[in-house]
């Protein structure tokens, strides 16, 4: 597996961002977004992977690895075990999009596999305000997979 194929890599999310930004027609109908979203993937061995994603208008304008604790500076962050994240992306690759209880809303609602967290309830609510766009962004992994990059 190459670095770009690993979900716990900046390259992978750079590819998701490029995928989103290359499809303005699809995201235009969903409407403008304004959210700084953190991701935290808890790994067993290599230390945790932290990422900050910036979404503005109909684009993902920022992908950056974050330092320990910096995910908390985002509007909200998604915190989960790497296996849960991998299962979600595998489901997306298998089905062309997240289905059943592997959608990001469902995963953050049931159990503790992936949680939506943050200090500000209004920041957390942004995750719900832009949920369809966030799901479409993550579903983009299916296009990467079918293109041979995922």
């Amino acid at each position, binding site marked *: 597996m190459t670095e770009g194929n690993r979900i716990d890599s900046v390259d992978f999310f750079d590819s998701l961002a490029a995928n989103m930004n290359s499809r303005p027609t699809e995201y235009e109908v969903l409407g403008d977004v304004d959210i700084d979203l953190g991701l935290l993937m808890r790994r067993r061995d290599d230390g945790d992977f932290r990422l900050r994603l910036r979404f503005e208008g109909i684009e993902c304008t920022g992908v950056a690895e974050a330092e320990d604790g910096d995910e908390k500076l985002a509007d909200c962050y998604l915190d989960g075990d790497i296996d849960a994240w991998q299962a979600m992306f595998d489901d997306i690759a298998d089905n062309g999009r997240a289905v059943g209880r592997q959608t990001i809303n469902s995963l953050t609602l049931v159990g503790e596999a992936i949680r939506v967290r943050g200090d500000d309830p209004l920041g957390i609510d942004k995750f719900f305000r832009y949920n*369809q766009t966030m799901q479409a962004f993550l579903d983009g992994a299916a296009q990467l997979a079918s293109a041979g990059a995922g």
Partner: protein
Amino acid sequence: MGAVADRSYDRLPEYNPLGMPLDWAWLRGVGSEWGVRPKPSARGLTMMDIAVGSYGEVPEQPQHRSMAPRGCDIDGETPDMGYILNRKSQVWSENVAELYEEAVARQWSATRDIPWGELRELPDDIEHAICQLCTTLSEIEMIAADLPAKWMWRMNHDFVEAKMFLCTQIMDEARHTEVFRKRALANGGGLLKSRSGASSLLRTIIEAKTYTQASALMHLLGEGFILDVFRQGELIAPTDVEKKIFRMAMQDEARHVAYGTLHIRYSIEHDPDVAEEIHEALDHGEGVLMEFGTQPDLTTAIALLLAGSADDVEEKGFPMQQAMAVKLLTSYLARCERAGLNRLERTLLPVEMLGIDRQQGIPAA
């Protein structure tokens, strides 16, 4: 700077062809600001972009009670429209212009944007449960249109951004009523049971004595609750059709909650006495919501969908429902705190039964 004309325009006619006197004051220079020329931002010319100079100043207590646009040169003889919400703190929230723009940009169509063609035949119990859920949602969603409509014409027109946002909320709720009605009818089922619990809740909201009480009951309490129901709906959706419905509706609902949270906060910050009247409204509203939230039709339909079949309701459905109730309650209490209301100490909701310790505070998200 007043709108002083570049030219004198002193050779204009004083009467029209019918002999009626003419007034060229608007051309010769009036007392409103001229030449502001706001710059569009990346996505176009937003309400935030045009909040420049005097046009961006929203008075705490407007002098006028007419429909004249804020910032124009208002004739002293304009009629009083009978507004009763004439203080900014009664309607405003700091995020209202942004939320208006967001609402306009994120409108969707229940006719076009839902993949209705992907509906498929479902097991009888699941189709019934979806139809019951949609029946209840179709009933209650329109309250969040009726309520702002009841108050908007009483809001001073200088708070036009708040009124514009509430217009988007009305459109959102019309669409929610539409989409849940459509789903109930679209797959061989139909509308099912309605009971008194829903109407009791809706009456409590619509009959609130002040707009801020109504906003607390509707935006913070009611729509906060429904936001979580929509989240659960997305989880338990049997097909991509329902998933898309609930995700799109969830986005709208979260926007309304965001307005309400910061409206209540603004209101309390500028008029601390209002906190007690909001608490009193929520004391009553939470009780009514409990009745509604535990009414048999809604809870059993959601529990069945969580379980995946009527056979597993007790073993799977109810335990999952209880776990989600904790999240729902935690989210509500956290939003109240963000709004400047400590409800944890005061609420009569069964927080202990759901494992929340009042002494420990609201569990972190």
